């Protein structure tokens, strides 16, 4: 499979206004630091990590909703980071995003029909009103909403329905890539499954590639072909689903997976899961060397001085850990 989007050494920084009256220089928050990956056609890459790991910033950096501080995002032979706003606008037809909060990602003052038709107005102005309406009808039907709901407003729909509307808006121009930023996290369990299946169906039908950002490992496992684990803005581990979930090699990935509650009373035991001690360090002042070392059960002196590089331990399965030899399954 060919790659549709290649991200090389991407960094996203935010300037945080300095506290205090006389501090001249704003602090820099390095939300994403030197992350690389490629996204192939028809594939889902899951980006996993906890609050503040930079997974959302990564998604926004890729789409240039936040301009990256460094790195390249290669799309059809061009680097999105160097494009002018006008050139970028043309690319947006093929690069879409779905947000976490279904209600707040829809303009409350627009009807469903207007919301879903808007991308067509921008990118396909040559289509007539009737053709646009026909496509919106078809799209709404495709995501499981009745086309006669077009004249209604977002506040009349439940969270799950709003997320379907967001998906319809993202899909209407037949994009090549959709960044899904926690698309099911605020939904109820039974609705989560509906939305996940809808995304999988749409991917099968259209071959769209998904960058699926989530903190929920079980959903990422269900949705993704490959996985990238982030911690404090760095990539910790990346690999194909089977290889990663079958034998996670980074101590952080291992802790993440063992912390997922098991829905089985005979196997679940909170006292047995591998609990990480300590607190997440401030992203303004990350630890030297390996950023995970302050909470890592396997940390050794070299972890303090040297930042580990992502090294392949199996085909396509990379780990950024000095102790990768010791984390292999026995």
């Amino acid at each position: 499979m060919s790659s549709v989007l290649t991200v090389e050494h991407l960094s996203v920084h935010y300037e945080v206004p300095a506290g205090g009256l006389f501090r001249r220089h704003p602090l820099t928050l390095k939300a994403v630091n030197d992350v690389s990956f490629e996204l192939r056609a028809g594939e889902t890459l899951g980006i996993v990590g906890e609050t503040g790991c930079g997974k959302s910033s990564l998604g926004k950096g890729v789409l240039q909703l936040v301009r990256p501080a460094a790195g390249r995002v290669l799309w059809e032979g061009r680097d999105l980071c160097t494009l002018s706003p006008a050139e970028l606008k043309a690319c947006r037809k093929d690069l879409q995003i779905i947000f976490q909060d279904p209600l707040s990602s829809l303009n409350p003052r627009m009807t469903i029909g207007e919301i879903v038709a808007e991308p067509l107005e921008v990118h396909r102005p040559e289509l007539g009103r009737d053709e646009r309406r026909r496509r919106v009808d078809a799209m709404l039907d495709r995501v499981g909403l009745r086309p006669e709901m077009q004249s209604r407003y977002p506040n009349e729909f439940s969270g799950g329905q709003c997320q379907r509307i967001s998906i319809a808006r993202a899909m209407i121009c037949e994009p090549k890539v959709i960044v899904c930023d926690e698309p099911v996290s605020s939904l109820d369990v039974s609705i989560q499954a509906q939305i996940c299946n809808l995304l999988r169906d749409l991917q099968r039908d259209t071959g769209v590639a998904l960058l699926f950002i989530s903190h929920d490992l079980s959903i990422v496992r269900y949705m993704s072909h490959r996985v990238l684990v982030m911690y404090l803005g760095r990539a910790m581990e990346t690999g194909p689903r089977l290889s990663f979930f079958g034998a996670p090699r980074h101590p952080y990935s291992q802790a993440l997976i063992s912390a997922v509650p098991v829905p089985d009373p005979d196997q679940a035991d909170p006292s047995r899961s591998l609990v990480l001690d300590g607190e997440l360090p401030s992203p303004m002042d990350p630890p030297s060397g390996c950023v995970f070392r302050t909470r890592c059960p396997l940390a050794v002196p070299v972890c303090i001085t040297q930042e580990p590089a992502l090294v392949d331990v199996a085909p396509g399965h990379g780990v950024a850990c000095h102790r990768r030899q010791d984390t292999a399954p026995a």
Partner: protein
Amino acid sequence: MAAVIECQGLNVRFRTDDGAVTAVSDLDFSLNPGECLGVVGESGSGKSQTFLAMFGLLAPNGSATGSIRYRGTELLNAPRGALDELRGNRLAMIFQDALSGLTPTMRVGEQMAEVLVRHQGLTRQQARARVIEALEVVRIADPERRYAAYPFEMSGGMRQRVMIAMATLCRPEVLVADEPTTALDVTVQAQVLRLLDGLKRHTGTSLVLITHDLGVVAGLCDRVLIMYAGRAVELGPVRDIFRRPAHPYTRALLRSMPGLGIDPAEDLPVIPGQPPDLEHLPPGCAFASRCAHVVETCRVTRPALLAVGADHARACHLPA
């Protein structure tokens, strides 16, 4: 063993612009000493409102009828004074959003000490010692220093642990935890769950865990109450709920969870449709419109919660 909490015929209603909304209807359950009861349901299932009613914390447009007794004392619509005696002392509650439970302008330790001074008549020094001990129990590093910290200086996980420490200061008999880990990351969730588990084992506190996540319930609870659209649909020991779920909703809910054990190559079975409108609940079973096994009776008559095994009951017309 006499139940600590006995709830009978509980109804919770809200007056809204669009008419009356029934959040909880005809709910019966009890909580035994030292057990952990999981209350599971999706948003709008009434799981939180049930316990807000018990603590007298319903929103101003809400009202509750029926009975919730704590060791024989009626809690519903009890006078404020009587309720204040029990709340925070014998009965404690923690919420999903730990920040809202802490006063932002007061040092964390002082807020906690306040509880002890008020309910147990301790002196400041005694209270301080107890608070630091409690912070140690919830594994907060350097509790002496954290005593003087303000809530905004703590992370979400730390605040939730502080809330648990605060709720357990007076060694309550009942602790209600409303989605205590929903806002937290998995690794922090694991810390908090381990803490609640330890609490239950070591202090004999009866625990109510309100959650939408069946995975959380499996590891911690002894019995589970499944709610749907304000009604109890199934109540039973945790093993029966997971091994022999008797209600179609419970079964569908278990199947639709993308746990780490499923085969990603196959599509998740989903529950089609949406939960019913609480303003216009159907006369029959609330789950009828989404149920795969629906029969005519389901749409007409509301099923009662009837026993299907030892301590295991469900509200369903279908043959067991």
